[in-house]
C-alpha cells in the first residue's frame, strides 16, 4: 500500500499541463491494526481544495493551494514556491477502498484507509475438545 510513483525528491520527467507549479508533499504512512493512515504536509491547503481519486489501484491525491497575496516590495529570500500538492499511492489489496476518508487540519492532510474486514486481526475461539470419555 505504501509505494508511490516516485521517490520524495525526484524530479519527474513528466510535464504537467497545469499553469501553476505542482509539488510533491512530504508524507508519513503508518499502519495500525485496523487501518493504514497517510499524513501529508500540504501547507496552505484547506478542505475545499482536496481531491482524492481512486482508480485502477491508485489513489491520487491533490491538494489545491490558493494563491497567496504577496506583501509586495522586494523578495529578499525565496526558499519555496507556492503551488498545488500532488502525489499518488498504489493501494494494495486488503484495503476497503469504499471507506477511505480524508481530512485536512492546519495544513496536514490525513487519509485513513480502513483495512478490509477479512484482514483485520480477530480472536479465534479455540474449542475445547469434548471431554474424553472415561472407560
Amino acid at each position, binding site marked *: 500500500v505504501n509505494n508511490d510513483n516516485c521517490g520524495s525528491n525526484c*524530479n519527474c520527467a513528466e510535464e504537467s499541463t497545469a499553469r501553476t507549479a*505542482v509539488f*510533491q508533499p512530504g508524507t508519513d504512512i*503508518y499502519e495500525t491494526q485496523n487501518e493504514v493512515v497517510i499524513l501529508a504536509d500540504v501547507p*496552505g491547503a484547506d478542505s475545499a481544495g482536496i481531491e482524492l481519486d481512486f482508480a485502477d489501484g491508485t489513489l491520487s491525491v491533490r491538494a489545491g493551494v490558493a494563491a497567496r497575496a504577496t506583501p509586495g516590495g522586494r523578495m529578499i529570500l525565496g526558499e*519555496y*514556491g507556492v503551488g498545488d500538492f500532488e502525489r499518488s499511492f498504489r493501494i494494495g489489496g486488503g484495503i476497503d477502498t469504499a471507506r477511505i476518508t480524508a481530512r485536512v487540519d492546519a495544513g496536514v492532510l490525513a487519509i485513513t484507509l480502513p483495512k478490509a474486514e477479512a484482514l483485520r486481526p480477530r480472536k479465534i475461539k479455540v474449542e475445547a475438545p469434548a471431554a474424553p470419555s472415561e472407560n
Partner: protein
Amino acid sequence: MLATRFSTMFPPAPFSINRLTDALLGADSHLGAARAFPGMNVWETDEAVVVEAELPGFSIEGVDITMTGKEVTISGKRAHTEPEGKVFLRRERPTGQFSRTLRLSSDIDGSRAAATLRNGVLTVTLPKAEEARARKIRVDGK
C-alpha cells in the same frame, strides 16, 4: 512540472544560511536547498519585513518568535507522537525542534510585530523601526 519543493529562486540573500552550500553546489542544486526547516520566503517593503514560513501541523502556541535588534528567531517543536500499535511504513515529515534566525538589515519595532498561522502557513510582519524606514529626501533647487 513536478518541481522540487524548495528551490533557490533568487541569488542567496546576505543572511541566507544556505549561502555556503549554494556556493559549493551551485545555485540550482537541490542538494544545497531544503536543509533548513522551515522554508522561508521573505519580503522587504519600505515599512516592514514580512516573513512567511511553512509550518504544517503546528499551532500558534507551538511557535515562538523572538526579536532582538536586527535579529528575529522563529522556533518551535512538532511533536513526534508514536502511540502504541503504529508501524511506520514511510517517514518523510520532519519532527522535533527547529530554530531559525534571520539577521535583517534594519532595526525592527518589535512592539508592533504581528503573526498569523493559517492552514500551516505562518506570516510574521515586522514593522521597521521609525529611523530605519526609507524616506524621501526633498532636494531643494535654487
